[in-house]
């Protein structure tokens, strides 16, 4: 420990915490993110965790990771880590590839014993050589287990409980490394463990000892200071995950529209947090029901919609498959409904905890019959709030189901969110039947211009009607099997959806508008694509970016913008679903495509590398 410590000032830094799924890596990462945000850093986080709750300790299958990117101009959780904290050999084995050549590896030396190495499947006693780690990586062995024991030797805690605090020792160390004052960490721990004073005291003791350990030993690594971001406008922020932001967007829409919020849902990874968030909001009058299955979840929501509520259901891929028939009923009955699909790797059970953009075609077309509806996507954890709000607004104002696509990456990831004011959010005007229709209302009564059906629900006197999944007569609303009427109804339902484009905001090109190459993306890849485009523009290679949040219908100027460029390349985390849709909309445009299907988000570097070949 002779090397003299140097202070590095960086614009941004990526840290990845990894360990057993029981090691508390998600908590450690979250606390560090909060500390960074308090100091004025932008942040983006990415939890990467296994499907198994507790795989055998110390094995590859049980490794859980949490990556956080802090600094200025942060659009993604980062491709590679500057600092990797590995709690055991298995965690190192799974995550070594993300470490930069000049990065820092901090590891629990106590767990890198013969037994630990064997459990992780190493065959020699030198895991670093086995992993071909670059020699330029700085290795920082810290006997975390032993030091945590020493820190808590005077406590009454048993051995197992003591070891569970070693994540806090690592956090203390990282706080020292990045000049994070401990007071704030203690404050956050107080929020977390406030009801368990013994546990709080132990965690505070260990995090403090970890910090002091780094300070006293001046660990032979450079310490980092990350500059405060100047991109952030003044205001009050919080850190929010995409799933929480989605839930809160629905609550805000309920307040704005004056309709009670009802969620029918069934637990499914990675969407369950939306159910958790809304179940906790009885204070806001939210009724969130955990149904007996996915189908019941959406059917209960549809019942609530029939009865006049803002209704939603939340799920992931397999659940969307199960809900297809009921979504079709919502199309046919022309009832407002928000369907949230937090996409994960598929098909079938697939990769439950990993991210993928593979439900797009199912969202667009995955129902029997001609069944048009609105499909939209959020692009970052914080904008899940905005798009959930807009999904509800569009559903209530246009009497249609809306599928909102998010994914494991932004659903579980978090970012800074500037707190909105309810008064500043757009107004929502549910399409409720006016009093003038009393006594003559039918299930097919609609605004003849927009084709939007009017909403009347039980309790309203003089508006009784019968709705359902059978085709109905355009005028009288009774059951009809007449061919010409069926054709008219199909056209009417399609026209209603198409007209929603009139109210969508015009799209804007990011990057260099004058470029020859237009990069196209949708949903959660926005940060990575923008980063790649900015990087290339900075290098003098002109690139433009057109990113979609509204997919069906497309915003009105989308077609002309897409026809404006010599080369258009559609980048997405599937084998080409959006590009397939775009080809059907613009058969004259020779779209190029760039795809990834590894259950992981893009890396900026791989997009840059691909775009450079164009």
């Amino acid at each position, binding site marked *: 420990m002779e090397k003299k410590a140097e202070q590095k000032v960086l614009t941004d830094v990526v840290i990845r915490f990894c360990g057993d799924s029981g090691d508390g890596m998600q908590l450690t990462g979250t606390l560090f993110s*909060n500390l960074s945000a308090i100091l004025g850093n932008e942040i983006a986080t990415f939890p990467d965790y296994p499907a198994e709750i507790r795989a055998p300790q110390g094995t590859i299958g049980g490794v859980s990771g949490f990556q956080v990117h802090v600094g200025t101009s942060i659009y993604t959780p980062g491709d590679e880590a500057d600092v990797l904290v590995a709690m055991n050999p298995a965690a190192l084995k799974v995550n070594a590839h993300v470490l930069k050549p000049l990065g820092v590896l901090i590891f629990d030396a106590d767990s890198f014993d013969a037994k630990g190495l064997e459990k992780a499947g190493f065959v020699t006693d030198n895991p670093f050589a086995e992993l071909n780690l670059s020699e330029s990586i700085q290795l920082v062995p810290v006997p975390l287990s032993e030091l945590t024991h020493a820190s808590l030797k005077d406590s009454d805690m048993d051995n197992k409980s003591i070891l569970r605090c070693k994540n806090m020792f690592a956090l203390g160390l990282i706080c020292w490394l990045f000049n994070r004052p401990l007071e704030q960490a203690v404050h*956050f721990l107080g929020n977390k463990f406030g009801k368990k004073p013994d546990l709080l005291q132990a965690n505070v003791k260990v995090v403090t000892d970890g910090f002091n350990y780094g300070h006293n030993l001046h660990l032979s690594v450079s310490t980092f200071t990350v500059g405060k971001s100047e991109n*952030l*406008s003044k*205001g*009050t*922020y*919080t*850190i*929010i995950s995409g799933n929480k932001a989605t839930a*809160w967007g629905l*609550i*805000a829409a309920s*307040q704005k529209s004056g309709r*009670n919020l*009802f969620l*029918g849902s069934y637990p499914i990874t990675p969407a369950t947090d939306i159910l958790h968030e809304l179940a906790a*909001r*009885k*204070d*806001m*009058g939210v*009724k969130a*029901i955990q*149904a*007996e*299955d996915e*189908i*019941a979840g959406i*059917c*209960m929501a*549809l*019942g*609530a*919609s*029939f*009865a*006049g*509520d803002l*209704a939603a259901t939340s799920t992931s891929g397999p659940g969307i498959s199960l809900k297809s028939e*009921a979504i079709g*009923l919502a199309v046919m*009955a022309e009832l407002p409904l928000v369907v949230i699909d937090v996409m994960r790797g598929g098909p079938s059970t697939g990769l439950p905890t990993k991210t993928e953009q593979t439900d797009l075609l199912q969202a667009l077309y995955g129902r029997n019959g001609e069944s048009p509806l609105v499909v939209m996507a959020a692009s970052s954890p914080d904008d899940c709030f905005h798009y959930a709000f807009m999904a509800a607004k569009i559903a209530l104002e246009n009497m249609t189901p809306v599928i909102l696509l998010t994914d494991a990456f932004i659903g579980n990831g978090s970012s*800074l969110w500037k*707190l*909105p*004011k*309810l008064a500043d959010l757009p107004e929502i005007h549910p399409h409720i039947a006016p009093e003038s229709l009393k006594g003559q209302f039918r299930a097919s009564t609609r605004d003849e211009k927009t084709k939007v059906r009017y909403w009347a629900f*039980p*309790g309203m*006197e003089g*508006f*009784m*009607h*019968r*709705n*359902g*999944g*059978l085709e109905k007569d355009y005028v009288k609303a*009774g059951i009809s099997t007449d061919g010409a009427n069926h054709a008219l109804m199909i056209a009417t339902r399609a026209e209603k959806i198409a007209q929603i484009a009139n109210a969508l905001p015009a799209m804007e090109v990011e990057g260099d508008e004058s470029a020859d190459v237009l990069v196209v993306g949708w949903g959660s890849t926005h940060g990575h694509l923008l980063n790649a485009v900015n990087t290339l523009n900075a290098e003098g290679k002109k690139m433009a970016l057109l990113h979609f949040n509204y997919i069906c219908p497309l915003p009105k100027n989308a077609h002309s913008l897409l026809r404006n460029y010599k080369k258009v390349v559609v980048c997405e985390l599937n084998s080409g679903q959006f590009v397939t849709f775009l080809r059907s909309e613009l058969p004259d445009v020779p779209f190029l495509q760039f795809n990834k299907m590894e259950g992981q988000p893009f890396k900026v570097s791989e997009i840059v590398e691909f775009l450079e070949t164009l």
Partner: protein
Amino acid sequence: MFTAKDYKSDQYVRWCPGCGDHAVISTLQKAMAEIGIPPHQIAVISGIGCSSRIPYYLSPYGFHTIHGRGAAVATGVKVAHPELCVWQATGDGDCLAIGGNHFIHSVRRNVDLNVLLFNNQIYGLTKGQYSPTSAKGFVTKSSPFGTVERPFVPAELVFGAGGTFFARALDVDLETSKKIMIEAVKHKGTSILEFLVNCVIFNNGVHGWIASKEDRADRLIVLEDGKPMIFGKERNKGLVLDGWNLKVVTIGENGVREEDILIHDAKTVDYTLHQKLATMQGPDMPIAMGVIRAVPCESYDEAVQNQMEEVQSKSKIKSFDDLLNSLEHIEI
């Protein structure tokens, strides 16, 4: 004051002539008038099948949904708006085959629904296949050599799922039908009303043993809470316990007196005797009709509402702005 006509829609009723459903809907309209809830405060939800067409023929708000899911949709309506009176119409296939899961869970939760379960032991709308209540050995187009399946007894599912209300009536027994409909609306919780209906096309005479009024007197017993279990043309037959089982006795024979006859207690939580009654079969035993079980219990929709009010009375969060203020704030 309402009349049955106030609950009729302008739609032409399209069931086959002679179908048992005609009797049930006409009784339902009379019962609704007698109960007196205005049509606009009633929602009738159904799944798919012949009987699930009911909403179209009634004047209240109606929703004809998808196969098997009526219970879930009805649950959503009732939980969202407990002030509404919610009926669910379903058949033996819709309710007990494709919708079996939603059925047992709505019963388990005790959502305040009035469920009309039309049991004709056949799939009618798809033109004659066996259903989960068809007798073993029943020959249909999908069981040309007879089914090898054992049937469900709906009452047993209700009791097994913790059900609080079960009643039964024959389609043509208008008096009992109306009575159990009225009782169902009074009951807070899931009220299962099993109607034994005839399918004149595909399963004619399925309830033939009790079809004629003459036969019914001796072959049915209409149970009433707090009343002795007496039946028969002469009103001289009754039920007593013989060991663990029920037995038919004749009052005045072998020293049996009227006070020896069991008194029906629909309110008892223990369903042992309710199950014995609900599973009685001819020719030795009469088939039990009327309200077999009606146990007072908090309904799910009430419980949801009560919990919400309790949380709201204690919570400091009264508005969306309060909610935002409850978050960890970071000033930049």
